[in-house]
């Protein structure tokens, strides 16, 4: 019943979202994750919590940071100092995995390239996840989550019918990279076990996400045609769209994939005469005339709440889903029944709800064991217990500014 990653120690140099989500998932499923931040190079999300900087330990109270960093320990090490680099290498020598998401040349500049880390730990799984990858003419370009989907080709095929390319409503390239991290690490650990040698995993976030539009790439290379944004429509199925419901900005999606589902829809909205209409008698005919179906469906949905419309349609076998808002996903009965959210107690931030580990590994479930760490909260554990440093050596680290108990608040203003 031990967790899949029990006994695996991960050194986490990642910041912001993609990397921290990935390493948090490693922690959720049993790894010991030590997040290393510099006294002046702390995760900038600590500063984006909307907590006034006049309040004590505001940097431990940013909800977004705490959301991405539970199940981790925190140690402060200034990697730009020689002594800090040495300390990190000592830590890597007794670890299994390193994850970093710096721009391509940063780790090399710090003297922490794969070769340099492998010299102290020949069995290291070294995961790099920069936007463009570690090599190539654009490797040094700066890129964040919204850029990733632009580079992956996704934005070019997203948007309203007849409209301009449209971004996803959040930084889609970040979490789609983060969720790949446990698989990459698992494959790396197996490879090390098999070969006895460390491995460098280079995950270019733009390449990982290009995998999510692969059929468009194959299509273009076969047929030479660029596909325009198609809104909520489907190339084959109709009706397939979003319909206004009662209430302010409330909507339900309906997607019929068969004649039976369309017949059920017509019965539910009490428009069975549509079944006799030659414009709607086959899937191909419905696809050709789908706009003409829109008013009939919306007339019915607009008199109902989005949840109500979904439940009625589903009970008659019609694929339908409410367009849930953020407050609604947090109260949704299905997610509640699955235990998707649970209370977390944090010594500085208090008590609030966070998401639980997303995948139900029924025999070896994930756990939210630790709240997100305060800055440098586990310096003592890491320096004394993991590295075996004596008090004098630790005092020197503080005196030389290699570590600190509080972040330099002049950073990230």
């Amino acid at each position, binding site marked *: 019943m031990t967790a899949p990653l029990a006994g695996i120690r991960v050194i986490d140099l990642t910041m912001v979202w993609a990397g921290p*989500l990935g390493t948090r*998932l490693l922690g959720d499923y049993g790894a010991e994750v030590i997040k290393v931040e510099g006294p002046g190079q702390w995760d*900038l999300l600590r500063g984006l*919590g*909307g907590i006034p900087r006049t309040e004590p330990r505001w940097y431990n109270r940013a*909800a*977004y940071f705490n959301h991405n960093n539970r199940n981790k320990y925190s140690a402060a090490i200034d990697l730009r100092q020689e002594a800090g680099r040495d300390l990190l290498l000592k830590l890597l020598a007794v670890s299994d995995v390193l994850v970093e998401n710096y721009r391509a040349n940063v780790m090399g500049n710090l003297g922490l390239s794969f070769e340099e880390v492998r010299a102290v730990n020949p069995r290291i799984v070294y995961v790099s996840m920069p936007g463009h*990858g570690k090599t*190539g003419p654009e490797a040094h*370009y*700066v*890129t964040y989550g*919204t850029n990733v989907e632009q*580079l992956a*080709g996704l934005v070019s095929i*997203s948007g309203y019918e007849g409209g*301009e*390319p449209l971004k*996803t*409503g959040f930084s889609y390239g970040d979490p789609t990279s*983060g969720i*790949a991290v446990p*698989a990459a690490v*698992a*494959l790396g650990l*197996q*490879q090390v076990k098999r070969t006895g040698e460390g491995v460098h995993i*280079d995950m*270019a976030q733009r*390449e*990982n996400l290009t*995998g*999510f*539009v*692969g*059929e*468009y*790439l194959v299509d*273009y*290379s*076969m047929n030479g045609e660029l596909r325009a*944004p198609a809104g*909520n429509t489907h190339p084959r199925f109709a009706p397939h769209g979003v319909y206004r419901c009662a209430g302010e*900005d409330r*909507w339900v999606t309906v*997607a019929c994939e068969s004649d039976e*589902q369309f017949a059920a829809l017509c019965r539910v909205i009490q428009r069975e005469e549509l079944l006799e209409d030659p414009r709607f008698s086959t899937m191909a005919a419905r696809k050709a005339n789908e706009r003409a179906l829109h008013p009939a469906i919306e007339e019915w949905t607009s008199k109902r709440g989005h949840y109500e419309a979904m439940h009625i349609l589903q009970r008659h076998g019609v*694929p339908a889903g409410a367009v*849930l808002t953020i407050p609604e*996903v947090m109260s949704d009965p299905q997610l509640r029944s*699955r235990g998707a959210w649970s209370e977390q107690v944090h010594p500085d931030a208090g008590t609030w709800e*966070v*998401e639980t580990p*997303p*995948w*139900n*590994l029924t025999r*070896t479930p994930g756990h939210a064991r630790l709240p997100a760490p305060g800055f440098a909260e586990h310096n003592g554990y890491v320096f004394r217990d993991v590295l075996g440093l004596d008090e004098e050596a630790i005092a020197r680290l503080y005196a030389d500014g290699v570590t600190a108990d509080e972040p330099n608040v002049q950073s*990230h*203003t």
Partner: protein
Amino acid sequence: MPLPLEGIRVLEVGTFVSAPYCGRLFAGYGADVIKVEPPGGDLARAHGPFQDGEPNPETSALFLYLNTNKRSVELDLGSQAGRDAFLRLAADADVIIENYRPGDARALGLDYERLRAVNPRLVLVSITAYGQEGPYAEYRSNNLVAFAMGGQMFLTGDPDKPPVKNGGYQADYQGGLNAFSAANLALLAAERDGEGQHVDISVQHCMAPILEAGVPFYAYNGLWLGQRRGNLMSSFMGVYPCLDGQVGVHVMARNWPPFAEATGHPEWLEDERYATAESRRAHDDVLMAEVIAWAAGMRKKEAYALGGEFRAPITFIHTMEDLLESPQLAARGFLRRIEHPVAGEASYPGPPWWMGPDAWRDGPAPLLGADTQAVLSEAGLSEAEIARVGAPA
């Protein structure tokens, strides 16, 4: 060097996108993936876009892409003979990936307890819209419905228009990649103690927590914007039309000076309205107008090159043509030319991450039922038994 997943055997009983994408990743990294297709084949074979627009179950770009490096067995799980043959295959598999509604899966014999009885090491990965249990467990879903129920759709689109999904099958792909990570964790656990398990993936649960800062800001700070923001998130984050396409900008506070330099507006750095992140937010409309005006006069590749030169987060919206012509993807060898016996040669995305020169395979998708005979005889079925499994003779 062996492939990372060499020696792992996977049965994929998956239709359309989510389970096949998970299977594609297993197969690319070296697992022996046996795709169990119903008579007539996976639904994706019936979907285009087809080569030259002509429907053909062997030339669907969707199918070709999602099923590279797999073997295809045509097997009717609706028949007892088909289910018996499947159990024989399951006895020798490490992983089964399926994406049916829970009730449908059980009817097809994909019942964890029954599978465990023939193979206790087996990892059964079920990808469903809502998970194996709960009030919506048997609700019907697809990519559009899942995108709505996972909270990502409400955020996507213009403020004065309905919510809109993003391109392709993004909810399904998220399900597939989450399942791949979860499955490989379960394989690690099985390797340790010889015990498999049922891995229950809810696409809704995978999607709902990853709405950027949305959930934590609401749960902790009680803040909810409640509005879509289209392409214009703010002056420093958005997609702006340019002369020959669109450019994308995502400027964090530390990127502001290089951004001003890259856009040819060093005077912005002297402008007190733009002196801090806070003051830039206060003058967002004015600054956005300036950024829009800058973008409107640029060519996309020129803007991107300036972003690279000045280390400013400026990109351009890459079309599929731009991907095929990308110097970065070419230098890294990301795109692979793959020859398929019916569809011919085409370009395909390579591995989601690189882990050495020989860690990923570049074989084509299988023809329907191409491996039925070989796989079932390897599993010890007689010719007579094979004839009954439901594949057309």
